[in-house]
C-alpha cells in the first residue's frame, strides 16, 4: 500500500508571479511559465515545497493532477530526436494512459530530476528506462489503491485509458480519483512488473512528434527567440588569436551607437545594447588591441605533430589471443594509417542564451544538452551555491553534439551579473565556426595479417587521441577563463577510443592508445564521439584484408562474425543493396566515371546498436569528385519505441556524417581558426544528397538502445570502401575532397 501525503499548497504569491511572468512569455511556452512558478515557490521557503528531484523517487518523474492528466518530468532533453513523444509513449504504455493526456517538462534543474547529460544516444536507453520504471511503479501503486477501494485484488484490475478498472467489467476509478494532485511518496521499484511487449499499444507506433507543427508554422520558441522584459542584447568579442590577451579597448569607437556599452572583465570583452542590431554594429565597430599569439601547430603537419608528441600516457585498451608468432607462409601482412581531422559542430543557428542573475541567484535559458551537469560549473564561476543556479532548457539549433551553447550560456550569465539586467547573448556565424569546441583529431595506425582463407591471424590498432581529463565535470568554458573566474581546466572530447578493434574473429588483437594531454583546439564530444573515425579505420582496414585475401567484403565479414544480430543486419543490408558477391576493386575502375559499392558494419560500442551499411558511389576521375548515389542501411537498436523517430535519426546520422566525411575539416593558421563561414567550412547541400534505403529491425523483447549515433559510425568506411571498389584507390584521410581524391587516384 503506497503512502500518500497531501501536496504542498503553492502560495498565492507564487501563483500571481506565475501569471504575471507567464503573460510576458510567448504562447506555447507553458513549460517555462510553469518553470517560473517552481522557482518562485522555492524561493519563498520550504513551506511551499520544492519539487522532489531525487531520481530514486517516483514523484521526481511523474505527477497526476486533479483532472487525471499526467505530467512527466524528464531530465533528458529533446534536440529534435523525438524524446517528447518517445518518453510519452514509454510512460503512457506502462501507466495505461494516452499520450495526449501526458504533459511534459524537460531539462529544468528546478523541476526535473538529473538523468545525466543528453548524450551518447542514451536518451531512451537510460533516461527512457528510468521513465519506464517510474511509470510501472506508479501503475502498481494506482492498482493497489484501486484494489483497496474496490475490494478486489491487484490481479483483478487493469490500468487503461487513465483509469483502473476490473478486468471482468464494471466501473473503474480514474487516476485523478485515486491520487489526483497528491504525491506518491514512493521509491522507484525496480521489481514493479513491466507490460509484456506483445500487448503494447503505444510503444512501437510511429506517433508524430508534438513539436513539429509549431516548428513548421513559426510558433515554436527557440532559445534564440526567448526574451525577458528589460533584457539587453550582447555580443562577446573574441580575440584574433586563440591565446591572445586583451591589451586595450577604445570605448570611444562605439560612442556614436545609441545605448551601446562596453563590458570588460580581464580578457573578457563584450558590448551590450538595447536592440540586437545596435549590438551587432557595436561588436563590429569596437576597436580593441590584443596581444599576439601563435601557439597552434601547422595544419599541414597536424598528424605528424600528434605522432611526435612525447608527453603522452600509453594505455593498452585490449589484448586478445596468445601473442603474435611467426607469420605462416602464404599469409599477407598489411598496414595503413588513418586520420580524421578536427570538425565543427556546424549548427545552422549560432549559439545563444539568455540569463538573469541577481546577487543571490541565477536563471539561465540554454540549449545545453546538460543543464543539470552545467549547474555545478556555473555555480562555481558565479560563486553561488549550486541550488541557487537554475538552468532551463530551450531548443537551439541542433548538431547532436556539444557546440557553443554552454559557452553562450556562460557569456550571458557573466554579462547579466555585470550589467544587472537580463542579457541575451547571440553568437555570430564567425563566433560559432571559430569558437565552438571542436571534434578532436584522431590518428590511427593499423596493421594485420590475414591468411589466404580470409582468417585474421593478427590485428593491431595504435591510436593518438586527446585524453579526457579525469573527473572533469564539464568542458572548460571560454568566458569564465577569459574573465579570470573560477573555471574547470582540462579536456573533454568524449568516449573516443571505442570500436577500435575488429568485431570479427582474429587470433590476436591488440589495441593501444597514446593519450595526448593537449589538443590543438578545445575539444568536445561531437556526434558519435570518436567512433566514426575508429570505425572508418577498422572497417576500411577490414576491407583491405578482404581484398588481400581476394574475398568479397561481405563474405569476409560473415566468415569472422558470430553475433547473430550482426549477421542479420549484414544480410539485410546486402539484400537492400542487391549485393553480388565478388572481391573489390570492381572491373571498370579505369572508366572516366567509375562506379563502385562499399560496405561497413559496426556493433556500436560492442554493446549497443548493430548497423550494416552499403553505399554506391560514382567517382569522376578527372576531377576527383565523388557522387554518393545510394546508401542502404540495416539498423537494429533493439526494441523500437517510435519507428519514425528512429528512422529520422538514422537518416540524419547518415547525411550528417556523409557531410563530415566528404567535406568537413576545420582550417587554422598558427593563431586561429580560419574556416569561419559556410564557404570555407562547407557542409552537405541538397544536390549532394543520395537516395536512402533504411531497414529498421525491431526487436520488441530486447532492451532499447541508442538510435542517434550508431549509424554515423559506418558512413566514412562504407564510402571509402566504395571508392576503392570503384577506383582501386584507398582514401585514408578525411575529408574526401575532390583534390584529395584526385591526388590519391594519381598516386595509384
Amino acid at each position, binding site marked *: 500500500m503506497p503512502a500518500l501525503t497531501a501536496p504542498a499548497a503553492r502560495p498565492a504569491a507564487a501563483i500571481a508571479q506565475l501569471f504575471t511572468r507567464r503573460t510576458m512569455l510567448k504562447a506555447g511556452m507553458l513549460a517555462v511559465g510553469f518553470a517560473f512558478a517552481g522557482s518562485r515557490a522555492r524561493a519563498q521557503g520550504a513551506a511551499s515545497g520544492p519539487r522532489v528531484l531525487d531520481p530514486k523517487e517516483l514523484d521526481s518523474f511523474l505527477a497526476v493532477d486533479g483532472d487525471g492528466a499526467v505530467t512527466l518530468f524528464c531530465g533528458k532533453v529533446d534536440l*529534435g530526436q523525438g524524446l517528447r513523444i518517445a518518453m510519452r509513449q514509454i510512460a503512457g504504455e506502462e501507466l495505461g494512459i494516452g499520450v495526449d493526456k501526458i504533459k511534459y517538462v524537460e531539462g529544468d534543474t528546478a523541476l526535473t530530476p538529473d538523468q545525466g547529460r543528453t548524450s551518447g544516444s542514451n536518451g531512451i536507453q537510460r533516461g527512457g528506462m528510468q521513465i519506464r520504471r517510474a511509470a510501472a511503479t506508479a501503475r502498481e501503486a494506482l492498482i493497489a489503491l484501486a484494489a483497496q477501494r474496490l475490494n478486489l485484488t491487484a490481479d483483478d484490475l487493469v490500468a487503461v485509458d487513465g483509469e483502473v478498472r476490473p478486468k471482468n467489467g464494471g466501473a473503474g476509478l480514474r487516476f485523478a480519483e485515486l491520487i489526483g494532485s497528491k504525491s506518491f511518496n514512493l521509491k522507484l521499484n525496480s521489481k514493479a512488473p513491466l507490460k509484456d511487449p506483445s500487448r503494447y499499444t503505444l510503444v512501437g507506433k510511429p506517433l508524430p512528434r508534438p513539436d513539429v507543427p509549431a516548428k*513548421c*508554422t513559426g510558433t515554436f520558441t527557440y532559445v534564440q527567440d526567448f526574451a525577458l522584459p528589460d533584457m539587453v542584447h550582447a555580443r562577446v568579442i573574441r580575440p584574433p588569436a586563440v591565446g591572445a590577451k586583451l591589451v586595450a579597448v577604445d570605448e570611444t569607437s562605439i560612442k556614436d551607437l545609441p545605448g551601446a556599452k562596453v563590458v570588460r572583465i580581464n580578457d573578457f570583452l563584450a558590448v551590450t545594447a538595447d536592440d540586437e542590431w545596435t549590438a551587432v554594429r557595436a561588436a563590429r565597430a569596437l576597436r580593441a588591441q590584443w596581444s599576439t599569439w601563435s601557439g597552434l601547430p601547422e595544419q599541414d603537419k597536424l598528424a605528424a605533430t600528434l605522432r611526435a608528441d612525447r608527453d603522452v600516457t600509453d594505455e593498452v585498451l585490449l589484448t586478445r589471443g596468445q601473442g603474435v608468432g611467426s607469420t605462416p607462409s602464404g599469409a599477407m601482412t598489411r598496414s595503413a594509417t588513418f586520420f580524421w581531422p578536427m570538425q565543427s559542430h556546424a549548427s*545552422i543557428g549560432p549559439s545563444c542564451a539568455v540569463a538573469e542573475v541577481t546577487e543571490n541567484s541565477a536563471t539561465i535559458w540554454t540549449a545545453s544538452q546538460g543543464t543539470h551537469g552545467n549547474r555545478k560549473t556555473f555555480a562555481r564561476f558565479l560563486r553561488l551555491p549550486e541550488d541557487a543556479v537554475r538552468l532551463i532548457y530551450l531548443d537551439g539549433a541542433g548538431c547532436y553534439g556539444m557546440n557553443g551553447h554552454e559557452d553562450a550560456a556562460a557569456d550571458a550569465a557573466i554579462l547579466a551579473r555585470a550589467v544587472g539586467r537580463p542579457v541575451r547573448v547571440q553568437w555570430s*556565424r564567425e563566433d560559432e565556426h571559430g569558437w565552438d569546441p571542436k571534434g578532436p583529431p584522431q590518428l590511427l595506425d593499423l596493421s594485420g595479417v590475414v591468411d589466404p582463407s580470409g582468417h585474421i591471424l593478427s590485428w593491431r590498432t595504435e591510436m593518438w587521441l586527446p585524453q579526457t581529463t579525469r573527473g572533469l565535470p564539464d568542458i572548460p568554458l571560454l568566458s569564465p577563463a577569459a574573465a579570470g573566474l573560477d573555471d574547470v581546466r582540462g579536456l573533454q572530447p568524449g568516449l573516443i577510443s571505442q570500436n577500435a578493434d575488429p568485431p570479427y574473429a582474429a587470433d590476436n588483437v591488440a589495441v593501444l592508445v597514446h593519450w595526448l594531454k593537449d589538443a590543438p583546439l578545445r575539444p568536445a564530444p561531437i556526434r558519435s564521439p570518436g567512433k566514426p573515425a575508429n570505425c572508418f579505420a577498422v572497417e576500411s582496414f577490414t576491407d583491405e584484408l578482404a581484398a588481400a585475401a581476394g574475398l568479397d567484403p561481405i563474405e569476409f565479414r560473415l566468415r569472422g562474425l558470430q553475433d547473430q544480430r550482426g549477421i542479420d543486419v549484414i544480410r539485410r543490408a546486402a539484400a537492400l543493396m542487391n549485393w553480388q558477391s565478388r572481391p573489390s576493386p570492381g572491373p571498370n575502375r579505369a572508366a572516366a566515371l567509375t562506379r563502385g559499392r562499399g560496405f561497413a558494419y559496426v556493433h556500436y560500442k560492442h554493446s549497443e546498436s548493430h548497423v550494416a551499411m552499403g553505399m554506391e558511389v560514382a567517382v569522376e576521375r578527372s576531377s576527383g569528385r565523388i557522387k554518393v548515389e545510394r546508401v542502404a542501411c540495416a539498423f537494429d537498436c533493439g526494441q523500437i519505441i517510435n519507428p519514425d523517430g528512429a528512422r529520422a535519426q538514422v*537518416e540524419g546520422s547518415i547525411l550528417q556524417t556523409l557531410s563530415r566525411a566528404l567535406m568537413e575539416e576545420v582550417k587554422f593558421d598558427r593563431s586561429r581558426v580560419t574556416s569561419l563561414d*559556410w564557404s570555407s567550412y562547407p*557542409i552537405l*547541400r541538397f544536390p549532394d544528397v543520395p537516395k536512402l534505403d533504411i531497414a529498421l529491425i525491431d526487436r520488441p523483447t530486447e532492451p532499447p538502445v541508442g538510435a542517434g549515433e550508431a549509424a554515423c559510425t559506418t558512413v566514412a568506411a562504407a564510402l571509402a570502401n566504395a571508392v576503392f571498389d570503384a577506383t582501386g584507390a584507398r582514401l585514408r584521410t578525411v575529408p574526401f575532397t575532390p583534390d584529395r581524391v584526385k591526388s590519391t587516384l594519381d598516386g595509384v
Partner: protein
Amino acid sequence: MASYRLRINGVDRAIESSDPDQPLLYGLRGLGLTATKFGCGLGQCGACSVLLDGRPVQSCLETVANAQGKSVVTLEGLGSIAAPHPVQAAFIKEQVPQCGYCTSGMIVSAAALLAEKPKPTEDDIRTALAGHLCRCGTHVRVIRAVMAASGQGG
C-alpha cells in the same frame, strides 16, 4: 530614428531603426516575428528566407530601407497550425524537422518554388533549395514533403 513602412503578412507595419542599412531580418524579429531565423548574416545558409514581393530573399542581406513599401511574407504569414499552407501541412505530415532551425527558410523557399512551378521534379527541388543548409540531415524528408505538397509522390 526613422520609420520604415512595409506590408508584412498582409498587415501594414512600421520598423523603427536608426540605421537604414539594418537588415530586414532584425526588423522582423524585433516586431516579434521570430520564425525567421538568424543563421549566418552572410546570405550563405537560407535560414532567414522570406518572400519580398513574392520572391524568396535572404532577409539578412535585405536592408529595411530597401524593403520599405514592399510586401513581406514570413513563415507566420504562410499559414498556421489551424490553417497551414500546403507546404507546411506536408512538412508536418512527413515529420520533416528535427531541431527545425532551418525549417522556416526551407518552407518559405519551397512555397515560392511551388508558386512558380506547381509540379516540380525532384531535381527542381534540390536546385531551388540548394542554398538552404540543414545540419540534422532532414533533406530526404524535405524533398518528399515538397513533392507531396505539389500533389506528386505519395
